[in-house]
C-alpha cells in the first residue's frame, strides 16, 4: 500500500490525555489518525467500527483506560470482548484482524499510547489494500455525508 492509511480512533474521554497529543480532532504526530472522543470505551458500538471500515477507513481502534481501572467499572473489558467478536466476525469476510485494535492507556500514558498507535498504523500500512468488509447489498465506497446513514434511528 503506497499511501498513508486512514485510521479512526475512538478514544475514551477518561483515558489518555489528548490535549498535548491532538489538534483539531487529529493526532499531531500522525495526522492520518482521526480521533473521536467518546464518554467510555464501552460506548462504541461494534457496528460503527464495521461502518468505518466499509466507508473506506483502513483501520479502527478503540482506546480505553487500563484494564481494571475503567471509570465505569467494566467498559474496557466489555469493549475488549466485543472487539474480539468483531475480529472473528470480520475475519470470515476476509478482513485482516490487524485493522481492528483495542488499546488501554491511562491519563499519563501519552507516549506509550502514541508508540502503540504508530505500531498499529505500521501494521496496517503493509497490508494489501482493503477489500470492502460487506460486499453485498451496500456500496462499499465512501459515501458523501448526509446520506440516510445517520437518519436510521
Amino acid at each position: 500500500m503506497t499511501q498513508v492509511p486512514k485510521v479512526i480512533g475512538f478514544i475514551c474521554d477518561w483515558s489518555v490525555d489528548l490535549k498535548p497529543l491532538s489538534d483539531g480532532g487529529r493526532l499531531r504526530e500522525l495526522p492520518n489518525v482521526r480521533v473521536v472522543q467518546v464518554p467510555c470505551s464501552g460506548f462504541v458500538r461494534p457496528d460503527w467500527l464495521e461502518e468505518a471500515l466499509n466507508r473506506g477507513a483502513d483501520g479502527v481502534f478503540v482506546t480505553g483506560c487500563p484494564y481494571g481501572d475503567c471509570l465505569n467499572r467494566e467498559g474496557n473489558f466489555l469493549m475488549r470482548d466485543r472487539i474480539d467478536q468483531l475480529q472473528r466476525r470480520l475475519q470470515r469476510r476476509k478482513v485482516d484482524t490487524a485493522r481492528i485494535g483495542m488499546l488501554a492507556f491511562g491519563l499519563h500514558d501519552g507516549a506509550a499510547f502514541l508508540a502503540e498507535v504508530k505500531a498499529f498504523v505500521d501494521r496496517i500500512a503493509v497490508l494489501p489494500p482493503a477489500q470492502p468488509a460487506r460486499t453485498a447489498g451496500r456500496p462499499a465506497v465512501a459515501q458523501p455525508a448526509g446520506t440516510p446513514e445517520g437518519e436510521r434511528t
Partner: protein
Amino acid sequence: MSTVVERQTPGRYARLMTTLLRETLRLDVWVNRLYPTDFNPLYYTGGLSNLFLFTLVLSGIFLFFYYDASLGEAFASVQYITDRVPYGGIVRGVHRYAADGFIVAILLHLLRNWFTDRHLFARDNPWISGMFLLLFGGFIGFTGYQLVWDERALTRLFIGGLGISDGTLVRILFLHIGPATALYAFLWWHYVRLRHPKIWPPGVWVLFCVGLVFLLAGVVPMTRETIPAAAPAAHPTSFPMDVFFLIPFWLLNFLPAGVVVLLLVALFVGGLAIPYASRRETPVEMGVRHSGVAQVIDGNCTGCELCYYDCPYNAIVMVPSPGHRSLLAVVIESRCVECGICIGACPFEALELPKFLERDVLRQVAEALRPGSGQAVRA
C-alpha cells in the same frame, strides 16, 4: 479527561481535586510498571478490604471459642489463648493485624474512589454505604480493644448499670460481634447497584496480605506489649497506642472529650456530604462524559437483554413489553451514570445518549473519511 484539563475551573476545591486525580493516576503508572494491570492492588482496594474482613471473621471465630466474657476471667482467657492454645498467639496477632489492614485498605479504597470521581452522581450509593461501613469498622475495632480487658480497656464507655460487672463485658462482646455481622448487611447495600462487584483481590495479593498478617503475628507477637490487667480502681496514665483504631483517645490528650466527639461526628457527616457538596468539574466541563441519561427507543428494542447484562450499575431493568410477548428495556434514570456502555451493547440501535447520538458519531466518522478533509470539526 482532556476536556477537564482544557477548561479548568477556578475553584480551589476543583483545582485540588484535579491535582489529586492526576497524581493518583500517576501512582498507577508506577505500580503498573511493577505489577501487570490485572495484579495492580490499587484496582482492587475494595477486594483487599473484603479479604481482610474474611480473615477477621475466621480468626474471630477461633478466638470466640476460648474467650470468656466475665470480669475475673476475661484477661486470663486472653492470656490463655496467647500462651497455651497451640498457635493461639498467632491467631490473636492475625486478628489484630488484619484489623489494621482492614482499616488501611478501607481508607485506600475511600481515597482512591474519592480522587478518581467514583463517588459522584449516580455512584453515590456505594459512597454512602461505605461511610457507614467505615463507621462500623472503627467502632468494632474499638470494642475489640475493650474485650482484651487490659488497662487499655478502661475508657469508661458502655459501662451500663451502676458499675463494671460481668454484664459490661457481655455487652461489649455483643457490641463487637453484632456490628461485625451488620457489616455484611452494609456490604449488601454497598454492592446492590453494582453489576459485577470486584469482591476479591487477585491471588497474588491474597497470598501476600494473608502472608504479611501471619508474618507480623509471628515477628511482632502480641505478647511484646505487656499491659497489666484492668482493675476497676486503676487509672492508667499511658499505654501502647494503636494508630488505626484508638486515634480519638490519643486526641483526648489535647482536647476535651466533647470536642473529640464533635470532631468524629463532623467527619462522618462531612463524609456523607462529600458527593453532594462540591464537584470537581461542572457538567459543561465534563464534555462528552455528560451526554445525558441513556434513552430507550421503544420501537427498536427487541428485549434481548444484552444491555441489561452489560450495564455496570444495574440501571437497566427488563419489563414486559405491552402488547408483545417480548421484554422491553427501561433505564432507571437515578442509577444511570451516562457512560453509554448500553449503547455499545445494543446491536439494534435501540439505545441512545441524548446529547451524543449515533448520527453524531457517524458524522464524525464520515468527516474523517471525506477525501481531503483537513480541518475536522469537533463534536
